[in-house]
């Protein structure tokens, strides 16, 4: 479904989605007609590494993978002139339920990603870079490999790029499809061939990441915004968005919406306005998951005053996350909705930390009982309490991400859960534990 080019008389940004609707935009020939690799030359190589990092800092670009960490600051943590090589790893393990923007980026415009990687590689002094792609994305892996081949043939990769003396090699690494491998240290472990489990921090990847060398892990979308900034400057990028959340972002919208898809819009757009842009909500809006399944749900009432930027969502105790917007209408069974989300997290927990390993499954099993009409009084409070217990007690941000939907759904739609529990005729009966005690011994 084509995106609108204008909204309310203003042109929508085309920083990332330039080639999304261009036929064969993934090929080098077509991409070059539309300005691909324009930065590979003096625009890039006349800038020092320091200038590059300052430029990105000035642009206010923030990580688009979920956490929204300022990209320039992340780059500045990498130690300079060390004995170890610096690695750049592109996180293309897009796994947040509801998110499908990176997949589209890699399908439609792999050359912009490669160009962004060359830009970033130059800024950080990277000789070898990896693209860690979710294992299921076979067509995207094929596209990336084809694009890399073209880029090598055209001299944009390999030794001495464009006569600058700078050399960069890019490898595509196929993951196995685990959600947790989208966490940067889990991703690094997986890249190194270990089980995809997040590492203890410190040390942070910028100091000791892949192969114990300084490593920068950035999302596909983040890196794809870099060439525009290099070419047009930080000020041009700041024409969109808010002061603290400048620029544009890709939003994957799905759910009860008339025109689902990926849209590039400036940050700071109101959620209700965005729904309008996407053809309007089907039925009456009940609530919306504003940034991927981890983001705490917002009610229709809250959405009225929420805009699509990091600060507005933080003030609503939610988050922009990966930009997966999932509105749902009043016909939605929110209990089953949460059950699906909880099952996802129980399935994807890496099994390292106790609270997340056992807690996500526990919550899932209680929700299953509630949905099956076997809930008991107090179960809803138990789930909320369990989520509170595992929220901040683990190595990585998976557990908070698994806790937030549970906490927010139960807080905001509690009556629906209680209603479900009351469907069990025996809901008020005392819990007895006969089957879980080894009988005779106790």
């Amino acid at each position, binding site marked *: 479904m084509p995106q609108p080019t204008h909204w309310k008389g203003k042109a929508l940004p085309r920083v990332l989605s330039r080639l999304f609707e261009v036929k064969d935009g993934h090929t080098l020939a077509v991409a070059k007609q539309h300005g691909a690799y324009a930065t590979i030359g003096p625009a890039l190589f006349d800038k020092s590494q320091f200038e590059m990092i300052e430029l990105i800092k000035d642009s206010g670009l923030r990580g688009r993978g979920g956490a929204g960490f300022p990209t320039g600051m992340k780059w500045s943590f990498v130690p300079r002139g060390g004995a170890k090589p610096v690695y750049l790893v592109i996180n293309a393990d897009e796994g947040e339920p509801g998110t499908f923007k990176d997949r589209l980026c890699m399908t439609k415009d792999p050359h912009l990603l490669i160009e962004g990687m060359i830009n970033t590689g130059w800024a950080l002094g990277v000789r070898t870079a990896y693209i860690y792609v979710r294992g299921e994305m076979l067509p995207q892996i094929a596209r990336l490999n084809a694009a890399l081949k073209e880029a090598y043939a055209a001299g944009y990769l390999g030794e001495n790029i464009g006569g600058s003396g700078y050399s960069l090699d890019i490898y595509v690494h196929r993951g196995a499809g685990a959600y947790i491998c989208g966490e940067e240290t889990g991703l690094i472990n997986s890249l190194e061939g270990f089980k995809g489990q997040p590492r203890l921090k410190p040390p942070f990847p910028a100091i000791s990441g892949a192969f114990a060398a300084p490593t920068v892990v950035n999302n596909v979308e983040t890196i794809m915004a870099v060439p525009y900034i290099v070419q047009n400057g930080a000020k041009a990028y700041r024409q969109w968005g808010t002061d603290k959340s400048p620029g544009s972002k890709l939003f994957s919208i799905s759910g009860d919406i008339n025109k689902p898809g990926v849209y590039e819009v400036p940050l700071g757009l109101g959620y209700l306005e965005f729904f309008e842009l996407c053809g309007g909500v089907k039925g009456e809006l009940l609530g919306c998951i504003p940034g991927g399944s981890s983001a705490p749900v917002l009610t229709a009432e809250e959405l009225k005053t929420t805009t699509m930027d990091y600060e507005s969502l933080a003030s609503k105790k939610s988050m922009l996350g990966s930009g997966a917007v999932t509105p749902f209408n009043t016909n939605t069974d929110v209990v089953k909705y949460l059950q699906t989300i909880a099952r996802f997290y129980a399935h994807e927990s890496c099994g390292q930390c106790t609270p997340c390993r056992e807690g996500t499954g526990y919550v899932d*099993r209680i929700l299953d009982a509630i949905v099956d009409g076997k809930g008991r009084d107090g179960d809803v409070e138990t789930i909320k309490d369990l989520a509170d217990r595992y929220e901040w007690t683990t190595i990585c941000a998976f557990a908070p991400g698994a806790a937030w939907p549970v906490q927010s759904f139960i807080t905001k739609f509690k009556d629906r859960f209680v209603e479900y529990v009351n469907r069990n005729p025996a809901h008020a009966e005392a819990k007895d534990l006969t089957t879980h*005690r080894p009988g005779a011994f106790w």
Partner: protein
Amino acid sequence: MPELITITVDGREVQVPKGIQLIEALRQHARVETPAFCYHEDLKVAGNCRICLVEVEGPRGFGFAISCHQQATPGMKVRTQQSSETVRLARKGVMEFLLVNHPLDCPICDKAGECTLQEHYMGQGRHESRLHDDVSKQYKGGADHRFTDGKGQDRGGKTIDLGPTIILDQERCIACSRCVRFMDDVAKSSQLDIASRGDHAYITTFPGKPLDHAYDLNTTDICPVGALTGKHFRFQQRVWNLKSVESIDPSDALGANLTIDYNISGEGGKIWRLMPRRNPDVNKSWISNRSRMLYQQLSVNRLTDGIIAGKDATLSDAIAAAVKALAGAKRVAVVASGHLTVEDNAALLALRDKLAGAEVFGGSWLPVGAADGIALSGDPVANRAGLTLLGIPQNLDDLAKRAGEFDAIVIAGNDLWAADPLKAAKLGSIPVRIVLDAWQTATVKQATIAIGIRAWAEIRGTMINRQERIQVLNACPVVAGPGLEPAWRVVSDLASLGWTNETQAFKAAQARSQRLAGLSYRGIGPMGVVLPAVAAPAAAAGVA
């Protein structure tokens, strides 16, 4: 003395050494009980159990941090369960999560009584279960080993035979990864791993491969629950019925520290197992499977009586016969042993001094291997350094050459005929062969008079390991036969020294080496003491 820094724990200022892990600072210096499942002093930090978490002040106020992965830094402000309700609740939560899928089969579990999970439940949990009939447990286990109980309930992976020494009960596992890290980092043979993820993660070996490392039984010690159990101890004893004494590994010159777990029940009692005893400078927390199984020899093939000319005799008759035989001998060879304690060898030296024309020989014909870097030095002669200290030469080859010079030989705790039968055969020409040994060895079979003695677990004494560390063996009251005496006591009878206490024997040893001066059993303590550098070489020379 390490540099001290000050940290604040629950509002109290505490001095701790610089660079110490926070969990150790809390445990050792702040005296705050800090639980842990995955943390182990001698393993890499994994930080996955989350029970040791505390609140540490950072730029954005107090936040959770796990104390096992934090170094204490100057000025650090820490809140523990003693002052923070948040920490207390978080730990309670961790305990609830650990137990929600645990089978709670403590009544039939070998670990009950020494189980970290039980211990910390009493300390941190004490919660009521929030499960009910319609919310089942997710028992851990792979698809290959599912066990269904009598009620038709799936109980997870039960009784999985991992290899020659270990049985695995996957459903008890709390996925702390201690065993995996032990095999990876200490044993350096990655035979174990956690398969799958989430609450269906389970411990397993690689498909079709056993767990068969020479140190694998250490995983049963560090397992905080009853998931890994040693076949030798499984269903043998409840641990609260066991008593223990501290001793060392007598089969290797490293002298790995261990405890002897025994109980007195019925006739004479029984030694049930040996457990490694942590000594960071010697064996860390590990002992080899071979050392661990030494207790099984203590009740097998023992020489509990005397033998005179191939016929069984009482111990006292054998001693009397030996005294008589020695009195009639002109030249006696006394063979000391590195398998015996310093006390025993001091007694043998005293015997040499008593007998005119006697000469002492020592050492072993056993081959010396290479150290494995964990808990074995490769040298089977545990007290070799003790022989050197007492000035006993290691010259068995010399003895074999000069066998014709002697008309009597006393061999104590040294199985020469097993170590090198060809060389030992030359000793067969000596007419009087008195052998003191705890087992019916090949050498005992060659003896004209054999006298049973107590084995290493049954005596109190000292040995000096390869690091010149003097370590104490303590006596377990379980003794193979009535009337058995330690070697020093038997030698004292042979030489009519009149020693009745091992302290007398130790004093005699101290008289022979100044490096032992000022030491006592209590002073040496459970961790041993590294002997001071050679104080006066003349002292050693004087007795030789």
